[in-house]
């Protein structure tokens, strides 16, 4: 049992927890970090893309030693129907820069390295330890946590809840509620191993160049969801996720969706003859700005996925996690430096600082997008992709039909499917939510 009292306890060792623990330790605070996995990273699941800018703020020279896979030179968006895709691809030589902007990573390996930096900075990292209870005094101030290993109470001035999307401590202590099924997506993912050369030729890459494919359309069977394919050095991360509430309504299975996505004629050749080495599933916060819970209180702050900080439009989460962890730690450091109490009033500095960062500004910008996409999922994920695919087919197929007639036919298909009011309404709502 640990008798010591810590300046701060960080619960969880994902992107947010590691960023917080590292920053606190770098500032000289006495930090305990708790992780339930056998090592930091062994319970963490992500696609995964690393955003360099946010990590540079924590570890400026991370590129020299972090286990990075490929730097991204190309982004592909695919709108899919059952046997085709319409693609928007952006590839630029400008991304072949010395300090690349985005990398693919393998989370279990990356997080293990990230955690080694946390330890180097002086934090105590206790793995294989599940935090079971947030302990509050009679005034409701958080004073520490209990775990399944140490038995007793471990005291701290402040607890940083970086416990992920299934943050148990916060909900048990009624600091926030569980995410609702309409505010989380369930994603399943496989790791497909292939020889390096096969990945580079199939994805049109050389050296450590990488590519990301994000796909939407009939692959999600009318549900709000996306598929993704990320090229790593010697494996491909491939997965698909949809809103939990949509899965409930349709009775579709996540592994059924995954198998269909893999067998799609645009996808199958990319992973042909691969060896699958892992199957994972994870929840992704999708509620956006409106689903963010209270972020601080007496003796606690919440960061990362546990706080629903995820930009669903740009598929960004780990950078918001890292940034919120760092900012929370900086706020705690400021309060501590002033020798002030870790009260809700003083910790509100975290919220103020977060509001000024890209984290809250981006989430606020897209505050209406989840509502739009979640309510009209049939149109955006089933009807439009099919219509666009048909129109493209008609556009490129040469069959003697006059072009004007082809255009009229394609336009008519859109109007019949959605009506003029529906089409303009969708365009208007999309533009307004995007603004």
């Amino acid at each position, binding site marked *: 049992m640990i008798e010591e009292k810590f300046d701060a306890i960080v619960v969880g060792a994902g992107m947010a927890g590691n960023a917080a623990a590292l920053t606190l330790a770098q500032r000289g605070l006495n930090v305990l970090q708790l992780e*339930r*996995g*056998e090592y930091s*990273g*062994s*319970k*963490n*699941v*992500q696609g*995964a893309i690393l955003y360099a800018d946010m990590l540079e703020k924590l570890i400026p020279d991370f590129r020299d030693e972090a286990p990075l896979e490929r730097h991204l030179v190309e982004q592909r968006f695919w709108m899919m129907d*059952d046997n085709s895709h319409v693609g928007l691809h952006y590839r630029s030589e400008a991304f072949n820069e010395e300090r690349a902007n985005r990398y693919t990573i*393998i*989370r*279990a*390996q990356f*997080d293990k390295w990230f955690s080694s930096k946390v330890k180097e900075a002086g934090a105590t990292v206790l*793995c*294989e*330890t*599940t935090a*079971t209870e947030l302990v509050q005094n009679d005034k409701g101030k958080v004073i520490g946590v209990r*775990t*399944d*290993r140490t038995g007793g109470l471990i005291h701290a001035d402040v607890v940083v809840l970086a416990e992920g*999307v*299934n943050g*148990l401590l916060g909900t048990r202590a009624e600091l926030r509620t*569980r*995410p*609702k*099924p309409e505010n*989380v997506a*369930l994603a*399943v993912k*496989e*790791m497909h191993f292939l020889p390096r050369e096969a990945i580079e030729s199939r994805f049109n890459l050389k050296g450590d160049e990488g590519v990301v494919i994000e796909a939407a359309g009939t692959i999600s069977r009318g549900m709000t969801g996306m598929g993704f394919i990320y090229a790593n050095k010697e*494996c491909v991360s491939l997965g698909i996720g949809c809103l*939990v509430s949509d*899965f*409930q309504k349709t*009775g*579709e*299975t*996540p*592994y*059924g969706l*995954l*198998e*269909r996505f893999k*067998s799609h004629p645009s996808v199958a050749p990319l992973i042909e003859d691969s060896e*699958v*080495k*892992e*199957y*994972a*599933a*994870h*929840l992704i916060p999708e509620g956006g700005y409106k689903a963010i819970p209270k972020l601080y209180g007496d003796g606690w702050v919440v960061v990362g996925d546990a706080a629903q900080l995820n930009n669903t439009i740009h598929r960004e989460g780990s950078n918001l996690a890292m940034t919120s962890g760092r900012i929370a730690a900086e706020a705690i450091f400021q309060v501590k430096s002033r020798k002030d109490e870790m009260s809700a009033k003083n910790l509100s500095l975290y919220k103020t600082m977060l509001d000024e960062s890209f984290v809250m500004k981006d989430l606020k910008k897209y505050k209406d997008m989840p509502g739009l996409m979640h309510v009209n999922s049939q149109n955006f994920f089933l009807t439009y992709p099919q219509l666009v695919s048909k129109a493209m087919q008609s556009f490129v197929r040469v069959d003697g039909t006059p072009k004007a007639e082809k255009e009229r036919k394609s336009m008519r298909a859109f109007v019949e499917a959605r009506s003029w009011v529906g089409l303009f309404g969708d365009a208007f709502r999309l533009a307004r939510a995007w603004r």
Partner: protein
Amino acid sequence: MSDPSVRVEDKLFYNRYLVDAGRAHIKVKPHTTPPAALLNMLTLCPARCYELNEAGQVEVTVDGCVECGTCRIVAEPSGAIEWTYPRGGYGVLFKFG
């Protein structure tokens, strides 16, 4: 496209686990007729931990659980299940994540 038959057991076979024998981290509340939330889990659980027994009740076997927490979101609020994390060090051990 028809639903291709998927053997989830084959997928779980890729994964490493340290099973905490006799300490299931998810428990189904005894019932005669399963509530909707439990029936949801028959198709929703990505590791197919939830199955219908011969008496028509939903049972859970957590050995292959990938700890996504979907059942916590769907079935815990109504009390149909009890959900917690496995003890430290136990459960799924991701190599890649």
